[in-house]
Structure formats: C-alpha cells, structure tokens
C-alpha cells in the first residue's frame, strides 16, 4: 500500500482537540519542524504532547497555545538558548508540564513498543522530578519492589501516543524509514499507534530492497509518509543539511517573550501556507543550498552552521 501523502492531508485527520502526539526530534537535530508548524496552522488545540527530550518543535507548540499537557525529559536549543516557552509554562504552572529524564521517557516509549504495561528502572529514584510527579499524582510512575531481587524500582507506565511523528533522511512508498546517524527516536517511532514520518527524500522500494541494511524502521510501523524537503529546518539532518545557526539564534531570542514569540509565529508559521513557503521566507533554495552537508563529514565543513 502506498503510504505517501501530503503533510497537510495527514495532519487534517488528527483530531482538532485533545490528540495524543509524540514527537521525535533531539535538541537541534531531525526536529519535526514542518509537522509542528502544520499542527499550529490547522489550529490543533489541547494536545497531550510527549517527547523524550524537548526542542524547538515542542517549544513552538507550547508557545502557540496548542498544548494541554507535555511530558518530556528536559531540553534546550544547545548553545543557541533555551526552550523559553516551555520554561515559562513551568514557572507559571501552566499547561501541566511533566518533567522526567531522557531515559525514563525513552523507557516509557520502549514499554509502548513492546506492548507491556510498564517497565522497571532505578533512574529517577532520589530526584525531585520523581518527588514532583508523585506529589502531582502522575499515574505513569509507581514505586514498587521487584519480585525477583526485592529491590526498589520505579515502574514506568507504557506510552503509546495516538500519533507520533519523526523526521528522517529518507523513506520509501511502503513506509520503510532510512535514518543515518544516531537513532534516539526509534522507541518514540515504534511506540506510536500511528507513526507519521516526514522525510527529506523519497526512495523507491527497489532501492530499499538493494539496501536493506539502511532501513532502521520497517514499514510495518508506519502509518503515513510525507516527503518534506528541509522538513527539519532550522534543525540539522545528518549528511543532508546543517542547522541554520542564524535562524536558531533568532528563535532563541524571540522565544524569550510571548509578544516577540507571537510575532515570529504570525510571520513564519501562521503567515505561510506550508513549509515550502516558510523556507522561501528564510531565503529559499539559495539559503538551503548553503546548508547542504558534505557527506564525508555529515555537516558543512568549514562554514554553514558552524558557530
């Protein structure tokens, strides 16, 4: 079955209110920027958002008021700055933001991939994240003893978001996903009930049959694929393009205040009809070409995103 669809068409079927959505980006790499922007354009609200670590995709959704709750393991924009919209929501006690650690969120997704109700771990024990989750009566954490060694563990409830989105270098029409570089998002991808993949490039299934070792997520998990070139911009995609340092620096400045964030939102997201138009606004093909990665290194050697 051909799973290639338009991104706007895929997003349209996500409920307008209260959808469970998991996102797969990591800090400034393979972030689901086109997908997050489309959720905002289509006015999705009260999203129950989850991600292992936080980055610009979740900061945008929180800042745009699309989120009802957000569980994550912490996050930043690396040296560019902070997730100031998420941070402000925490400081002001809005949007029910639940802080875990990266491993505890990855473990919740792992339980989801295996379809087991929970997974035991010793991480989070002794931390204030756990204290707060327990004080808030968060139902995804439970302290118990292992029946095998009698020791104390945190039992983390499985997470299987209704929809998850990851961004990858390439996918074929059957939804086989090709990722190069680290694969921090495999559990997130496989945990979702419906996996949406945005990919920079389409490859044919014949290419996949000749390069099976490049497939990191078999198509059995995939619900739909949207081919969105530069779909992670301004984040990086290993061996495809670098992060855009100027655009990230700009975002890390405007996200510090709701008014300047709103201006950014109006100009770049609500003021554009799709990701292509957003890219045009930033300088289009000329700018994207300057970000093209040298495949020998995976980034722009001697320039581009280099700080």
């Amino acid at each position, binding site marked *: 079955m051909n799973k290639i669809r338009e991104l706007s068409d895929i997003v349209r079927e996500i409920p307008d209110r209260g959808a469970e959505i998991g996102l797969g980006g990591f800090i400034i790499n393979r972030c689901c920027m086109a997908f997050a922007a489309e959720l905002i354009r289509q006015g999705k609200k009260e999203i129950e958002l989850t991600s292992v670590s936080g980055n610009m995709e979740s900061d945008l959704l929180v800042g745009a008021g699309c989120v009802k709750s957000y569980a994550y393991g912490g996050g930043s924009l*690396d*040296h560019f700055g*902070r997730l100031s919209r*998420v941070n402000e929501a925490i400081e002001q006690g809005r949007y029910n933001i639940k802080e875990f650690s990266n491993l505890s969120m*990855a473990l919740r997704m792992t339980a989801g991939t295996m379809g087991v109700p929970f997974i035991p771990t*010793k*991480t989070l024990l002794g931390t204030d994240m756990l204290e707060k989750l327990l004080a808030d009566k968060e139902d995804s954490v439970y302290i118990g003893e292992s029946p095998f060694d009698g020791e104390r563990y945190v039992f983390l409830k499985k997470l299987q978001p209704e929809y998850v989105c990851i961004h990858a270098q390439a996918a074929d029409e059957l939804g086989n996903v090709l990722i190069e570089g680290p694969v*921090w998002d495999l559990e997130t991808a496989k945990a979702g009930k419906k996996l949406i993949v945005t990919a920079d490039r389409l490859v044919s299934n014949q290419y996949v049959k000749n390069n099976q070792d490049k497939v990191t997520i078999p198509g059995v998990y995939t619900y739909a694929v949207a081919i969105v070139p530069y779909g992670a911009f301004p984040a990086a995609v290993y061996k495809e393009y670098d992060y855009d340092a100027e655009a990230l620096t700009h975002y890390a400045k405007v996200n510090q205040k709701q008014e300047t964030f709103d201006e950014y939102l109006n100009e770049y997201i609500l003021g554009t009809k799709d990701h292509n138009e957003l890219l045009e606004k930033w300088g289009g093909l000329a700018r994207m070409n300057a970000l093209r990665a040298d495949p020998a290194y995976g980034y722009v050697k001697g320039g581009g995103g280099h700080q």
Partner: protein
Amino acid sequence: MAEYSTNELMAVTAARRLQNGMIVAVGLGLPQIASFLAKATHAPDLTMFYEVGVVNPQPIDSGVGIADPRLWYGNDSFTGLMGTLGEILQKGVCDIGFLGSLQLDRYANLNSSLVKDANGVKHLTGSGGAADIATFSKHVFVIMRHEKRKFVEHVDWVTSVGCYKGKKSREEAGLPRTEGVTVFTNLCVMETGAESGELEVVSLHPGVTIEQLKENTGFDVIIRDNLPVTPEPTEDELRVLREQNPAGV
C-alpha cells in the same frame, strides 16, 4: 612553568583522573575537553560516548552541543538513547559519568533544572540524560565554577543524585551503589568520603588559600589534613590541550 588558564588547570586535573580503558559518558564543554586530553595523552583506549547515541567520536571541528554532527565525526558506532542510557549505563558498564552542574550540595547532588530566588522559579534545562548518567555510572565527575551560590547546603532541585543524603542512603533509596563523586572546580578538587558520602577537599589549586575556599563555599566543607597543592599542567599537556580543544573552550 608555563602560563595556563583556570579552565586549562581544571581540564588537565580532571583528565589525569581518567584511566586508560575507562568508559566515559561525556557532556559538552570541559568534560569533553578533559576526556579528549586524556585520550591524546595517557589514556588512548578511553571510550567516550554521548547519550544521543554516538560511541567513540574523534571530532575535528567544534560544535554547539551533542546534537551537532560536528561532534559525532570519526566515531566507531551509532546507537540511540536506549543504547547509551538504557543499556551501556543502566547495565552498569560505564565507569565515569562526566557532568557539569548549576549547583551542588555537600552530598554532591546536582541541580541542572532550575534556580529559585525572591522572584520565584527560573527553569533552565532539566535533566536530559544527567539524572540517568548520575544514577548508573560507577563514579561521577563534576566540573564547575566554585561560587558560594553554586556550592550550597541544599540544591534548589535534585536533578541528579550524587551520594543522596550521605552514608548508605543511596542504596536504601533503591539506587545502585556509587564509588563516589569527584568535583573539579577552579579552586580545588573534592571527593565524597567513602563512608560519609560528604564532599571533602583533597587538593587546593596553586595560589588558592583555605580562606578563599571557605568564602566561596555555601556549606561547611570538610578539608583534609596536610592538603596537597594540585600539580600544575605540564607544557606537554598544555600543548595537546591547545592543539585539539575540539569544543573550543
């Protein structure tokens, strides 16, 4: 003796504690610089990994963080967060978790989440993998500036557990046993006591006085008798450090 900066002294002092063959979970900045220095000098078989899923990188360009492909260059293998935090660390094969921190208390618990002041709470980054790394590494190294507002009786938020509440409290809370925490600052080196789990100053950096140390520490820190002076960096170490310094600090 060659001239050196405080950062260079911190990096060299930490690097000397990394032994050949160790497996180290590293974060960006001084932890990474110290690890690469060790690898280029006395510990060629050091294995470094970043939680994002990159094992044994040999970067040649500086990057903005562990999600920057510049820092992945020349690695031996890729995995994901489950491969690093969930397996290498949780299985217990990581020797050193090498972290930075905003605040540290007398039992070497780390705060990298938020700071509280008269205006309320300011949230910064949260755990990421820091809590997981501190929980599962056999030994934790912390490298940070020595200031009164950073070395405090109680951290504003326990992001990552060091020796918890001292003595056997860590195991009693269900956490894996730790060999302890070693802290490298711009003033001294501290280690947690084997029994007490409390930080003790084990060497003072050249020119630093005990008075100065006390002034900059927000709790009554234990100072060992006959305190040695931290050995200065050698010309060789400084040369290697300045030549490679992949994260450009």
